[in-house]
């Protein structure tokens, strides 16, 4: 009656991977933070440059999370895959947290660099809008009582909202802006001093793994909760 296609394979596989993922995340985070604190101060920015190692990866993961969420939403809508629904639903709050982190660290960095916590430029504004999108998706999902309808509705929004991703990325090119231009993901290779590049790469990987670990954990708990709910209803009936 409550036909939840049993994502048993996912539970088995993720159960095996999760411990390794958690360990790798912890190791990379430690290494990355140590490196970040040990690089020499920047000749222009001084110690403020260290914010980069927490800011840039947070912003990247926030965007990646959105992309994955939209993908999951599409899979859920097209193939009616329950696992994709769970993935979509659980990615939103995580992505929102990383977005908030990127906003906070960015604006802490902005104070010494630009003299203001906030400016209304294309990158900052479009990234703020990403947070709004995440919040809208979560709010829409919560506002509809019926589970499947909730996931479908917020999934449609997630897919539509994906247009914001390229806008965030290219905003620095499309507007005259205060924000740092593309310095890593650009044609012609990165334009950052190698001393900063390595710690940044490690931190980026660490954040990514952190996101995946948290995502898997949340997916597993959601699946278990649903099983419990189904048992409750059918058990009583």
């Amino acid at each position, binding site marked *: *009656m*409550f036909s939840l296609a049993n994502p048993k394979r996912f539970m088995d596989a993720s159960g095996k991977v999760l411990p390794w993922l958690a360990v790798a995340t912890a190791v990379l985070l430690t290494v990355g933070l140590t490196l970040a604190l040990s690089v020499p101060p920047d000749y222009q920015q001084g110690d403020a440059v260290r914010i980069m190692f927490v800011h840039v990866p947070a912003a990247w993961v926030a965007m990646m999370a959105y992309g994955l969420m939209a993908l999951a939403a599409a899979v859920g809508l097209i193939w009616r895959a329950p696992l994709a629904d769970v993935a979509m639903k659980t990615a939103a709050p995580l992505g929102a947290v990383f977005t908030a982190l990127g906003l906070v660290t960015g604006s802490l960095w902005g104070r010494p660099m630009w003299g203001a916590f906030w400016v209304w430029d294309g990158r900052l504004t479009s990234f703020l809008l990403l947070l709004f999108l995440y919040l809208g998706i979560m709010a829409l999902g919560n506002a509809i*009582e019926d589970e499947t309808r909730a996931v479908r509705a917020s999934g449609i929004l997630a897919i539509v909202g994906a247009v914001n991703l390229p806008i965030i990325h290219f905003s620095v090119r499309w507007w005259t802006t205060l924000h740092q231009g593309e310095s890593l993901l650009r044609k012609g290779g990165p334009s950052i001093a190698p001393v900063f590049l390595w710690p940044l790469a490690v931190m980026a990987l660490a954040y990514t793994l952190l996101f995946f670990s948290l995502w898997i954990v949340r997916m597993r708990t959601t699946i278990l909760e649903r099983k419990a709910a189904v048992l409750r*209803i059918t058990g009583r*009936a």
Partner: protein
Amino acid sequence: MTLALDIDKLTCVRAHRVLFEALSLVLTAGAFVSLQGPNGAGKTSLLRIIAGFLTPAAGIVRIRTETGAILTDGEDRARAVGWLGHQDAVKLQLTVGEQLSFWSKLYGDGAAALAPFGLAPLAEVPGQFLSAGQKRRLALARLTLTKRKLWLLDEPLAALDAAGKVLVAQSVRAHCAAGGIAIAATHEPLGVDGLTLHLGGP
């Protein structure tokens, strides 16, 4: 020119409450069903499931058309349904004539029949000025012009006077005689021969 409706082990759950379970019913051309039951029994919900608006928790609804095609998908089924909802879908700002001509264009070429429902003198009157029963008559006129084979009627007699009630009975009888199927959720006998389906109840 006929169709058959096949309701198979439907279960309806609303707000975590099971309204009906494993409901099955097969209707062939000309059948009329009076759907009865106390307030909140799930009559409207059943009609919405048949129309394809609502997805049942379990079970399936099939329509067999004259060409032998079997429609299970909600959207295909929708094209066979004539709907008279509890709400009249009357726009306050449009005149009776405007509304009927709009719906007849939307549904195809059925001409708007004002006269049989006593609407002829009201053609120029905007929806805002209609009395409750006049609105209901407008909804009935719209139902007949859609020329659909499967009528789903939610309290068709609401707000109608004695003459209006007779009119509904006549329309339904004519519809069934022409090979149509009609299901009417009602708290008052319609005066049409047919099955009675009780929902809910103690």
